[in-house]
């Protein structure tokens, strides 16, 4: 059956990576068909496994690795939906890239790296233990580094690639520290015989971890989950480690699409979802997740309002939407237990569809007009009907537009509204409505910036002379497929929640749902997300299409708020310049260099040890008179002394 080939889900793209890297130059389209075929193979196997295990089966395979660790595959409902989404969206992006990258001479390298990227992400998804998860997670980071720096000869790309790797690395170290702590705690309870691994299980497997939760000290568990969340913050671009994601736009647009939709950034959310039973057992961590997520959702959206680079707007939108997913895990997790995973993952997947679509549309626009700056676009609707339409669909989905009560709407309508309602429910139960407030305001801003983008790009009069045209079929095809999903994926909501709800029970882990009947939220709460969505649309329509308001007063360097937003809250200055260059390099590293050269080498070795020896030599060498007689006298004196000493020591006659 399909589950026997589960390992191929990862191995096929890896093989494609190797083949494309070395043989790509000799193949048509830079060997693009190899990764496409491989990822299609992964998708088919994933789909096959889904059909095989539905509704409540899981696939587990495992082989021992080193030092009591293992390599293994765990495909449960959570993993299988991710597998299908990742391989499917990645496949579409690859197809699109055949057109998008058609003029780039380094195509073989591009397709090889994206193939490895997909493989690494698939490997994250189906890992059955936290170590393998971490390894794949790091490989994802590596591939993002390579792909963001794909045009390595551009200094900005090289810098962005480094920033992406380093900032996510901060999170990775926290994640690693979490694994260290977890391992030590697991090991302690095993040594003290409080817990024993089931036969065939390994210490860092998710199943063992979940089984051990009740035995691990609560404080330790909070530390572990917080450290895990630190990893997720890095990977998913949450505040304060969000800065790399907008900079990551230096890579090709298709790479951005991959990073933002199918791979990489969702890994952070997936990590929290994967280890959710541990988070549930550590409510303090959940609170942190909720607040960081909610704040990021709002914080990133504010910057999305003022960006002029089409891809940067989308990047901040991703940061913001990832904040929603975290918020869902944090708030809903505290109220509805395991169902929160479903809510969050549903948004993750619908976001994957419409965000991939947004990026690919942006790519199509950039391909056509040759610039990223939306101020230089305009009036493209007539020239690029398919792109404009599909992008509108994606924008509607992002803004969560739909009709409440009769449940008709875009994917975002179902997924995002559920999160906002979850936040409200949380607020109602705990009296803490701040996350809900974050979510609603962010929803309004989301709607404003995405329609601002659309109106500035597609309506009005063209602001450049360039002759723009619709992209070729190989590019518009994926757009239309994704648009279908962005429109209709939402209708699978009930089934999706139901399928994922039992996820952890299948592994023998029960998450206590909190008591109390689910009360239907007030009508205003149900309506509010849609109202703010429409309101945002209207505001953008008024300002950017009808030009009813003159924005030039606001948009000027005189306006401190605008300046703050445009400078991204000075995050690049604080992060890279202050902490990176000034503090680390100029202060710490240079003073270390000073200690090394001047203190250890200069003072201790040269001045103290070396000089003392030289001065000693200076004194002793005066004894060398150069007169042979002196030497002879001293020798004789010495012999005489020796004889006397021998006489005293040994006596004799």
């Amino acid at each position, binding site marked *: 059956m399909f589950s026997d080939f589960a390992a191929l889900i990862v191995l096929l793209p890896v093989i494609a990576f190797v083949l494309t890297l070395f043989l790509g130059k000799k193949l048509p389209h830079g060997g693009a068909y190899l990764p496409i075929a491989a990822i299609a193979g992964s998708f088919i196997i994933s789909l096959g496994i889904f059909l095989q295990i539905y509704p409540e089966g899981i696939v587990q395979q495992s082989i021992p690795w080193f030092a009591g660790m293992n390599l293994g595959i765990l495909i449960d409902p959570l993993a299988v939906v991710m597998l299908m989404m990742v391989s499917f969206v990645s496949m579409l992006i690859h197809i699109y890239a055949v057109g998008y990258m058609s003029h780039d001479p380094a195509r073989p390298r591009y397709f090889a790296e994206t193939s490895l990227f997909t493989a690494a992400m698939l490997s994250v998804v189906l890992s059955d233990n936290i170590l393998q998860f971490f390894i794949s997670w790091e490989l994802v980071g590596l591939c993002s580094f390579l792909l963001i720096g794909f045009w390595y000869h551009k200094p900005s790309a090289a810098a962005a690639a480094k920033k992406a790797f380093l900032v996510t690395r901060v999170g990775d170290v926290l994640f690693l520290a979490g694994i260290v702590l977890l391992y030590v705690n697991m090991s302690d309870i095993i040594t003290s015989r409080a817990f024993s691994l089931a036969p065939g299980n390994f210490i860092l497997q998710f199943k063992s971890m979940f089984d051990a939760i009740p035995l691990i000290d609560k404080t330790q568990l909070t530390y572990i989950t917080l450290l895990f969340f630190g990893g997720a913050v890095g990977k998913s671009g949450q505040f304060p480690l969000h800065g790399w994601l907008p900079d990551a736009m230096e890579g090709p647009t298709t790479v951005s699409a991959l990073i933002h939709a199918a791979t990489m950034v969702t890994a952070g959310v997936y990590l929290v979802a994967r280890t959710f039973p541990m988070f549930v057992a550590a409510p303090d961590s959940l609170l942190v997740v909720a607040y960081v997520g909610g704040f990021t959702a709002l914080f990133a959206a504010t910057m999305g309002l003022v960006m002029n680079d089409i891809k940067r707007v989308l990047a901040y939108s991703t940061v913001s939407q990832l904040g929603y997913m975290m918020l869902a895990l944090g708030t809903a997790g505290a109220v509805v237990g395991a169902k929160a995973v479903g809510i969050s993952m549903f948004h993750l997947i619908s976001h994957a569809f419409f965000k991939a679509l947004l990026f690919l549309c942006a790519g199509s626009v950039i391909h056509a007009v040759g610039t990223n700056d939306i101020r230089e676009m305009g009036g493209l609707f007539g020239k690029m009907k398919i792109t404009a339409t599909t992008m509108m669909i994606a924008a509607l989905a992002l803004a969560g537009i739909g009709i409440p009560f009769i449940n008709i709407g875009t994917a975002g309508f179902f997924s995002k509204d559920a999160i906002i309602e979850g936040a409200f429910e949380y607020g109602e139960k705990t009296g803490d409505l701040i996350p809900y407030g974050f979510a609603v305001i962010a929803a309004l801003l989301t709607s404003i910036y995405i329609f601002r983008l659309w109106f500035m790009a597609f309506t009005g009069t063209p602001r450049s002379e360039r002759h723009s045209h619709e992209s070729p079929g190989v590019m518009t095809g994926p757009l239309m497929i994704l648009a279908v999903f962005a429109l209709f994926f939402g209708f699978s909501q009930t089934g999706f929640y139901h399928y994922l709800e039992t996820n952890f029970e299948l592994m023998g882990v029960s998450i206590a749902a909190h008591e109390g009947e689910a009360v239907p939220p007030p009508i205003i709460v149900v309506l509010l997300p849609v109202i703010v969505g429409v309101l945002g649309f209207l505001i953008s329509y008024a300002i950017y299409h009808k030009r009813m308001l003159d924005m030039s007063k606001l948009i000027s360097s005189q306006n401190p708020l605008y300046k703050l937003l445009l400078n991204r809250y000075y995050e690049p200055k604080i992060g890279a310049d202050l902490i990176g260059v000034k503090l680390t390099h100029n202060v710490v590293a240079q003073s270390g260099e000073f200690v090394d050269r001047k203190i250890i080498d200069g003072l201790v070795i040269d001045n103290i040890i070396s000089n003392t020896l030289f001065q000693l030599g200076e004194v002793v060498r005066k004894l060398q008179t150069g007169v042979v007689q002196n030497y*002879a006298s001293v020798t004789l004196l010495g012999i005489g002394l020796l004889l006397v000493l021998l006489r005293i020591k040994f006596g004799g006659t």
Partner: protein
Amino acid sequence: MSLYTYLLISAIIFVIGAYGIITQRSGIKILMCIELMLNSANLNLVAFSSFNGNATGQVFAIFSIAIAAAEAAIGFAILVALFRVRDTINLDNINILRW
């Protein structure tokens, strides 16, 4: 004559040689004094050999004489070479080895 007589004579010659090395300034004289010391040692070797009935000491004495000859040859050669360069064999003036 007893062994002690030989040893006494040997010791006297040795001390004369040593005294000469310390007090004399001329390279030639110093070499001669070294010869004296060597020969005192040779005398010891032969004397012990004779009184102990063991030929090893005499063999060593012959070795020693051969080495003394070689040493004297090299020593005088060095002094001649030195004289050519420095116009003196007064060792007080030949002290470039110091410091």
